[in-house]
């Protein structure tokens, strides 16, 4: 048992409320006099709004109606840019774009009314693929449909091709993915002329919503209060879109003077809110006979949808991760985020990295195939070592031992024996069943990219009460990942007090400081560290006043607090983010220290493919990672397992079907996420930390990066076909198998 709370599997702090049905999510909240809101959305991908008709036998005089003209401030959803309106004004740029808001006390009336608002359009041409966006025959954004263009890398790839012993190229694609949190999105807003706007709801980032709502209503931050309710999953899907729902509910509340609840049903949630960016990656590589990489030329494009939203930062992370955890002297990553006429794609666990890592890790297996080498051997030939630099010029300072990571994964997965047994089975069988095993090696940067954490300038506060209780104040949200528990463990250790004396305050912008958004695997590493410092500030004040000795126990801490309050009104510890020394990022040239820490991983998937039905079943999954210090093994394991299952879904089950820019399968009955039966046992282990003084690296997104290429590499091993895209649906695999059969 470790000394202290960190390192122990402390049970989830809010677990009791969650297992008794007591936890209150937004739809569980009823506010007296509340109206129900609904959203009328565009039915076409792009066009001018000619007229809006309110039809049908409905009490229109009782129904609150809001359009763009009712927005009291600027009709812009402030994020990185302000190109997205809260409500379409004269023109729509994607299917399901919000145009009119309605509210009524009777939910059935408002739902009926929603279906009786008829909008006349003059359609305009639209764009529905990355290729069409790049061709720019139809321009839907700027002058060329390109939101953002980055060039990153090192060396000179063009000098390598002429003398390269081997060259291999390939094109890889990844599809959109729906977050499919089980709790659909929702908000309840209230407006009071004196107090301003108050919004409660399902969300990841309270201060993002506050930032968006202030200009919409022309209100200062202290008149826009955002409160997080218990939140039933986020995965990035509740990062930026909640600002829009909050704005809608608040606008209806502002216009009606009554509380307004908007809770989406599943179809509205899936069709209207964000998804993972679809991507297309072209890789041209040069290597020697042993598989040593000589050049990687990567052209990475993501589909951002109709507005820019978070696409530049998604692209940035995908760009930085595109060359993987490998040493290569000549790398060029040319990357673009482009506009199409689908609803904006947005944050989703992994944030661009799963897309570019999928392409590279499939490509690494193809290099091995081309050379007739083992895929493990080709990767080992290139793994980054301590002191080497990544493709963006970041020197790896920590004593990484990626071979050890790979060794452990192979041992746990029984790689050698299985690879051999599967090869023998596949060569000798006359039946339809094929078996394969595949791997991926990857890393994921913790926290905001580059100078992002400096710009965020996060703050956290720990208050001590006269009874010696500690109140944790941060905007970081518990969305299932364990924020409440790990914060308690970190603060408990810093103050030497039991966990049950710590209260993690529910994020509420009226009470908690801005510790930054709950994204980018940053909560534990960045905010956890701030809370340790804020607690140390409390301890320092108690010691400075002579109330607490240099070493102390919980009872002495309580006594010290009591003594402090004899002549003080409050005891507040504060911490502000300070960048680690010696970390530099050159945003313009995309060079330098992209992240202050990386988590490293090797994943192995074993699959069975039925060649008659082209069904793929993942039988076994081994996930080995180095994450520095593990704060809570059960919660950390849960993060990895959940991410792996979600990524297996992306790899072989979850197919977003688009029809003219609209999702055609927006239900759980036709967009298939893995069930308990579809998911293999996921065997997780955390390697001993590489560094002697390890930090707790971010882990929320890491498990999304590796499974898709590992599974597809296993399918390639099982069948001999060369799948290049996810999701690999049976239809696609059937075509590949048929083509292979015809060729033989």
């Amino acid at each position, binding site marked *: 048992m470790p000394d202290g709370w960190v390192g122990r599997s402390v049970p989830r702090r809010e677990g009791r409320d969650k297992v008794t049905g007591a936890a209150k999510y937004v739809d569980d909240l009823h506010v007296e006099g509340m109206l129900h809101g609904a959203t009328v959305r565009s039915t076409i991908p792009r066009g001018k709004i000619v007229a809006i008709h309110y039809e049908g036998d409905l009490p229109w005089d009782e129904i609150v109606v809001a359009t763009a003209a009712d927005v009291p401030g600027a009709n812009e959803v402030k994020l990185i840019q302000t190109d997205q309106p809260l409500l379409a004004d004269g023109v729509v740029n994607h299917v399901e774009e919000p145009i009119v808001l309605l509210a009524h006390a009777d939910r059935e009336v408002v739902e009926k009314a929603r279906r009786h608002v008829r909008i006349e359009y003059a359609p305009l041409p639209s764009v529905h693929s990355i290729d069409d966006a790049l061709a720019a025959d139809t321009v839907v954004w700027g002058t060329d449909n390109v939101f953002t263009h980055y060039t990153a890398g090192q060396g000179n790839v063009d000098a390598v091709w002429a003398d390269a012993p081997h060259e291999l190229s390939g094109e890889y694609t990844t599809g959109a993915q729906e977050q499919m949190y089980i709790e659909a999105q929702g908000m309840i807003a209230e407006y009071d002329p004196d107090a301003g706007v108050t919004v409660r709801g399902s969300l990841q980032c309270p201060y993002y919503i506050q930032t968006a709502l202030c200009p919409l209503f022309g209100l200062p931050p202290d008149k826009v209060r955002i409160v997080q309710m218990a939140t039933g999953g986020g995965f990035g899907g509740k990062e930026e879109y909640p600002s829009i729902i909050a704005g809608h509910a608040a606008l209806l509340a502002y216009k009606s003077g009554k509380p307004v609840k908007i809770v989406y049903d599943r179809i509205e949630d899936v069709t209207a809110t964000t998804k993972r960016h679809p991507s297309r990656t072209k890789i041209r590589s040069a290597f020697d006979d042993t598989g040593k990489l000589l050049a990687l030329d990567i052209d990475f494009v993501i589909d951002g949808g109709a507005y820019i939203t978070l696409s530049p930062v998604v692209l940035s992370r995908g760009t930085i991760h595109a060359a993987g955890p490998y040493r290569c002297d000549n790398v060029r990553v040319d990357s673009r985020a482009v506009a199409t006429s689908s609803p904006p794609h947005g944050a989703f666990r992994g944030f661009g990295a799963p897309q570019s890592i999928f392409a590279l890790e499939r490509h690494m297996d193809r290099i091995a195939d081309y050379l007739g080498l083992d895929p493990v051997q080709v990767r080992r030939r290139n793994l980054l070592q301590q002191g080497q630099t990544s493709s963006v010029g970041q020197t790896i300072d920590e004593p990484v031992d990626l071979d050890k990571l790979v060794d452990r994964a192979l041992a746990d997965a029984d790689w050698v024996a299985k690879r051999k047994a599967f090869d023998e089975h596949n060569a000798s069988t006359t039946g339809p069943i094929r078996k394969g095993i595949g791997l991926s090696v990857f890393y994921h940067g913790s926290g905001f990219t580059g100078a992002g954490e400096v710009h965020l300038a996060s703050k956290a506060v720990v208050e001590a009460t006269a009874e010696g209780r500690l109140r944790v104040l941060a905007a970081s949200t518990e969305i299932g990942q364990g924020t409440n528990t790990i914060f308690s463990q970190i603060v408990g250790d810093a103050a030497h007090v039991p966990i049950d004396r710590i209260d993690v305050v529910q994020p509420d912008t009226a009470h908690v400081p801005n510790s930054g958004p709950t994204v980018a695997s940053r909560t534990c590493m960045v905010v956890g560290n701030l809370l340790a410092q804020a607690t140390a500030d409390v301890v320092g004040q108690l010691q400075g006043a002579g109330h607490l000795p240099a070493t102390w126990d919980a009872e002495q801490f309580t006594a010290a607090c009591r003594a402090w309050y004899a002549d003080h009104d409050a005891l507040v510890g504060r911490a502000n983010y300070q960048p680690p020394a010696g970390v530099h990022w050159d945003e313009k040239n995309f060079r330098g220290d992209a992240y202050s820490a990386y988590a490293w991983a090797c994943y192995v998937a074993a699959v069975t493919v039925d060649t008659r039905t082209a069904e793929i079943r993942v039988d076994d999954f081994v996930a080995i990672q180095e994450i520095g210090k593990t704060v809570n093994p059960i919660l950390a394991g849960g993060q990895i397992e*959940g991410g792996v299952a979600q990524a297996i879904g992306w790899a072989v089950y979850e197919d977003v079907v688009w029809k003219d820019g609209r999702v055609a399968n927006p239900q759980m009955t036709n967009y298939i996420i893995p069930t308990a039966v579809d998911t293999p046992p996921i065997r997780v282990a955390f390697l001993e930390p590489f560094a002697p003084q390890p930090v707790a690296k971010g882990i929320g997104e890491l498990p999304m990066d590796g499974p898709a290429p590992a599974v597809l590499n296993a399918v390639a091993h099982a069948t001999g076909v060369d799948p290049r895209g996810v999701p690999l649906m049976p239809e696609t695999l059937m075509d590949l198998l048929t083509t292979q059969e015809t060729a033989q």
Partner: protein
Amino acid sequence: MSHVNVTLTVNGTEHTVSVHPMARLLDVLRTEVGLTGTKEGCGEGECGACSVFIDGVLTNACLVPVLSASGTTIQTVEGLEGAAETLGPLQQAFIETGGAQCGICTPGMLVAAASLLRRNPDPSDAQIREGLAGNLCRCTGYTRIVESVVDAARRMKEARS
């Protein structure tokens, strides 16, 4: 259609509510009876977040018109053994083994797990996965849900012996 009176026994207490006969049992439980532990995930019987017992049978409350549940005995997550003061073995296992993350599928998952353990007090991992296949979870990858049910079965067995 006008409202009708429907009588339900929910977690041991009788309720008579005046509702539209085609109102979903899920909505009646949440708004009329005031028990919000039963959740809605999909509204079409796919996710199992609204799982309840109707006369002891595991059912998706979102698919049941309230009139057809008239006179039945309903048990929700709030009425599971140990959901009040001291936690029961299932709830304890879900907290300690990591079976609950965001918590939104948890009520339905607990009801489905209780149903499974009533039918089969000592299920194998495969039987647990099969038994919970009607309940979607997006957080856990199911590994720790399976372990939680195994753990709960063990606790129940110890309590019996």
